[in-house]
């Protein structure tokens, strides 16, 4: 059963929100509604988050991300549509049921921390357990653990105002983690952290997710972050979800110009993997082939060396043109074959960044799956081309944490205002 299901969510701020939804359904656009004094913050958003998945919602500021996430735990009642958590309709829940769902199922990290300024750091972190009715000793112990996990050892008895912004954000994270719910909602949860700690927290989050199997709905305006941690990413623009897919799907096949422009900004080397740049192993030698045929093939393709596979496409080794040329009288090439060194074998999901090292040592890298089959090859030249493409987009990137290429001036202004 999916952890989160959002069904046609709408949120239109203003006095006649439902009227606004009707008009949107009839095809009216955002500007028309704005003229009528309505703010359509989220428009017809539907998506499913599977249990144990990190699902990222990505968009510029003002695109409706915070509003969307607030509808997931019912802080904002949707103007239309509904949300199910593990099949239970939270939108229809009221009073006791709603509070139970929030205690047991879902906790939240807030964009602006939303810590309780009058409570100590540990009492902040213990808040979720407090509402769950956990005894004091127990909840302090668990809150302390969560704080440690977030790198806040020794700050238990301080007030939030005594901490830096980044540390406060981690208190917010600890508060959500300590509550130990199935689902974590994280609204730009790392935005106040400086880049190094931020990367660290991203890694920790992925680790945590793998260890505890939490379902995470993560919001960010930073595509690099989205690509780094998201199993799947929903691209949001002006209240609408314009594309949902894995990082690679979005990079290689952007649904529209908007996504494409966003994507141009990404550090491709971190996101692209060996499988997305490799070439099909067309010119590959079978182990049973004779040296003459092999030699001819290599000269045709102007290759100094070639990989050799067995009938089941498992990688057996490689031969060089020199070696084959000198032993044209052999029965087959098995005797001339050398094993492929480990550094020249990579798995399909090795990131581009990790390919540069091997590429310096070998003219071609073999991409081999778990069963030992050769999936493809990456000649050095291909890698350089991919790197060039990545660098080209890097030129437009001023810093990793900022989105730079914005589709239009208005959104740019909104981004600045945030």
């Amino acid at each position, binding site marked *: 059963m999916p952890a989160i299901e959002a069904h046609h969510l709408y949120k239109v701020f203003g006095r006649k929100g439902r009227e606004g939804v009707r008009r949107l359904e009839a095809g009216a656009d955002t500007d028309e509604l704005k003229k009528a004094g309505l703010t359509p913050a989220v428009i017809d958003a539907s998506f499913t988050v599977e249990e144990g998945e990190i699902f990222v919602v990505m968009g510029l500021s003002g695109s409706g991300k915070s509003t969307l996430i607030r509808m997931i735990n019912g802080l904002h009642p949707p103007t239309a549509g509904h949300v199910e958590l593990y099949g239970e309709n939270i939108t229809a829940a009221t009073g006791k049921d709603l*509070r139970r769902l*929030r205690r047991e199922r879902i*906790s*939240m990290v*807030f964009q602006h921390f939303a810590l309780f*300024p*009058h409570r100590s750091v540990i009492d902040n972190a213990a808040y979720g357990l407090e509402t769950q009715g956990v005894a004091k000793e127990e909840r302090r112990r668990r809150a302390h653990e969560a704080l440690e996990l977030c790198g806040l050892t*020794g700050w*238990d008895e301080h*007030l939030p105002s005594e901490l830096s912004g980044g540390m406060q954000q981690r208190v917010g994270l600890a508060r959500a983690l300590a509550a130990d719910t199935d689902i974590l909602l994280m609204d730009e949860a790392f935005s106040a952290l400086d880049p190094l700690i931020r990367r660290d927290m991203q890694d920790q989050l992925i680790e945590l997710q793998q260890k505890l199997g939490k379902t995470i709905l993560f919001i960010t305006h930073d595509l690099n972050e989205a690509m780094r941690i998201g199993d799947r990413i929903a691209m949001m623009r002006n209240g609408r979800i314009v594309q949902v897919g894995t990082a690679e799907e979005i990079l290689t096949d952007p649904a529209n110009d908007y996504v494409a422009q966003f994507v141009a900004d990404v550090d491709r080397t971190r996101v692209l993997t060996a499988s997305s740049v490799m070439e099909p192993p067309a010119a590959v030698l079978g182990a049973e082939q004779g040296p003459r045929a092999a030699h001819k093939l290599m000269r045709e393709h102007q290759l100094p060396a070639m990989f050799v596979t067995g009938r089941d496409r498992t990688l057996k080794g490689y031969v060089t043109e020199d070696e084959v040329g000198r032993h044209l009288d052999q029965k087959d090439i098995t005797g001339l074959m050398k094993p492929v060194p480990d550094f020249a074998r990579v798995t399909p999901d090795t990131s581009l960044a990790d390919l540069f090292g091997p590429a310096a040592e070998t003219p071609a890298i073999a991409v081999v799956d778990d069963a030992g089959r050769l999936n493809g090859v990456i000649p050095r030249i291909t890698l350089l081309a991919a790197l060039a493409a990545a660098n080209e987009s890097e030129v437009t990137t001023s810093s990793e944490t900022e989105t730079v290429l914005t589709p239009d001036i208005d959104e740019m202004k909104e981004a600045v205002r945030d």
Partner: protein
Amino acid sequence: MIEGTTPLTIVPPLPVGELFETGFDWFKDTFDAAFDAIGDFINSVIDGFAELLQAPEPLVLAIVFALLAWLVRDWKLAVGSLVGMVVIIGMDMWDPAMETLALVVVATLFALVIGIPLGIWAARSPAVSRILKPVMDFMQTMPGFVWLVPVVILFGIGVAGAMVATVIFALPPAVRLTELGIRQVDSEVVEAGHAFGAGSRQILKDIQLPLALPTLMAGVNQVIMLALSMAVIAGLVGGGGLGNEVVSAISTLDLALGFDAGISVVILAIFLDRLTASIGSRRPGHGRLRELRDRFTRTPADRTPARVS
């Protein structure tokens, strides 16, 4: 109106006051017994409290007040308070001052018990807020003396009537500043409470009220100040205390007595103002009272200083 000059009567006479009186008379006749009972209750509470304040040796109580000032603020206020109290004793105004203090304290408590829940209610319901706002405006802008009239009719001359008038006069800031304080609490912090599944009562108790406390205490301070000024005016209807002294000073044109009573009021006012103002402005987690309490209640494990890294 001067005989013979008939003004243009385009505007028909509006017997607003008379209408009010008619309604009021009905009200009084219907609930007379209830008001008697309430009056008796109030009388006994205030008299009891005043007697309590007058029972110990004045100087001893003055020292207790000074200690209280030290606890909630600092030694400067303590010394100032002690000097002020000694001056009151020296002017032979101690007994009426304590009567006034009793009236002020009890009236303040009543005003808070009524006003704070109303303020909370108004903060949660825009409709209630819309209704209460003009009512509070009306209560606050109506000159204090006017409240004396209906109150005397209902409760007769005496302390009970004086206290009710004082409560009415002092109520608005309790309502207003409670509402304001709660509305001022960062809405995201309240959302955080909801997000973790707290009920609205829990949110009120654990989040909204503690964070509204400074504003709320400013309200308490204003209530006390208004109560003190009204308590003196209420001397006109037999409120007793310093108000009585002022009234008799006016009727006998006794300048000395008037000054003695007036200075006593000023000293009480400063004392109460500083005392309550400092409670509201203090940051949570600090303060002598908390320090003392912590010293006696904390377990040794809690006291290990947090490591600052």
